[in-house]
């Protein structure tokens, strides 16, 4: 089974800008494994800080398999994950 690691920054600014909702969206992919024909497991790692120390205007920050996503949201992160898995 394919494995994918997604790191989500959970600094205050990223949490305020929806980091927890992004994590929820990533977890929700597990419920769509049949519809998406997924044979993979996604490992979510919350990080105190990703990227630069003060990344306010770029938050939330997410890294999908070493690829940094700035101003991430559920839509862009789910799409990136599926791109990596398919």
């Amino acid at each position, binding site marked *: 089974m394919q494995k994918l690691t997604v790191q989500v920054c*959970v*600094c*205050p*600014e*990223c*949490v*305020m*800008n*929806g*980091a*927890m*909702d*992004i*994590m*929820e969206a990533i977890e929700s992919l597990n419920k769509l494994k049949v519809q998406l024909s997924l044979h993979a497991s996604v490992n979510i790692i*919350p990080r*105190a*800080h990703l990227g630069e120390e*003060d990344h*306010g205007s770029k938050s939330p920050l997410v890294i999908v398999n070493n690829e940094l996503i700035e101003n991430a*949201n*559920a839509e862009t992160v789910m799409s990136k994950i599926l791109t990596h898995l398919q």
Partner: protein
Amino acid sequence: MRGIYTPVTKIRRQVFAEIARLAYNGDDMSKLEEIPYKIIPGEVPTYRDSVFVERAIVGERLRLALGLPMRSATDPAPISKGAADADIPEKYYEPPLLDVIPFACAKCDTTHYYVTDNCRGCLAHPCVSVCPVQAVSMVDGRSYIDRDKCVKCGRCKEACPYSAIVRYERPCAASCGVDAIESDELGRAKINHDKCVSCGMCLVNCPFAAIADKSQIYQLIKCIQSGAKVMAAIAPAYVGQFGPLATPDKMREGLKKLGFADVIEVAVGADISTIHEAAEFLEKVPDELPFLATSCCPSWAMMAKTNFPEIAECISDSPTPMVSTAHAIKEKYPDAKVVFIGPCAAKKLEASRRSVRSDVDFVITFEELMGMFVAKGIMVGGEEDESEPFTDATGAGRGYAVTGGVAEAIRDVIQEMDPDREVPIETADGLFECRKMLTLAKAGKRNGYLLEGMACPGGCVGGAGTIIPINKATASVKAYKNSTEKKHATESPYAKKKK
């Protein structure tokens, strides 16, 4: 939109962070005029058809976040007009707490049924047959509903085999459990403040971000900066709200970095309230009262007393956890200022009552606190942060934040006091469900019961001022509750057992 991060959420939170920055930086109130340009940059509108409208709406939100009254669109005043009045180190509040920003309202149509393109114009057309007032007919080969005749019973919707008929509701009105949303002369939503119980559900369910409540963060920051001893009382729903690293053990240090002198869990007050309500149940039910209903949720209690005056006395008169906690703090530190930090809009109203005002100085929500953390650049739960666990509260008190937790805590104490006593329980969350429960209770069908009502979906974890999705918050609160060594309220050092 509950549990989904949207641009509406983003704007609301940006406003709190910017108001907190304004306070921390000690900027002149004239800086307010610049903030809409920071939140809505550029010349191309993102959310509406004009950046000027977007900025004007942000301007009104900034005023409300300062606690200022909303202006009329006909008022030529700048955003900062009167803002100096709010530049004080104590609560600044004048009713109403919650309001619709009229020019942000999209004038959504009121409740009606209509036929979508799913209609096949079928031979059976049961929608026509089931309508009791002949409002449905076949026009040009498809179903048509005459809105003047329609009585909104929904039978046509139920009967359609293609799910072609939908019930259309204004999201604000659909989320309001007390029918407080009306319309102004231009068809925009208007809150009937005589009916409103300030639960804040319209605020979080309006997809156009047209509803906002007043905040006290600016004045709270000024109070902290004045050197006052400010104590934070944090409501049980806080667990998990500030991210997975901001564990309960790390919250005290995080809040101290903001300038709070110390932090106490409101779960401590919940334990006190539990024991009080358990004793009240044993004393009054069934001889004096047919049933007892919990009192901790202010919107539920207000709805019950307003809509069901015949059974108002069945709502417990125990002090709420917020009040018990604040009272305990002021007993120990009479000169301290107490801030209740919770998930709830209605607590702001509760704290403004004459009987509560002296104990609770400020009320802010988790979202507003997050704005303070962001403005100050404080990371909660960093590796270098001290771990200082809270030790006074019990699992029962910590469970208050989730539907069923309050009644369970009270029942456990009742059965500790009187092991033979059976305590039937019913719980309801969301004011629609609460009203159904009270309708049955009023009809005498819940005699002998302990009733728990929560205005928000899932309990306090679904409050209007929360940050994370409800299911995540529920799981966090339950895990924290279950990990607590002291299980029952009577094990709390604050609790004096009443018999």
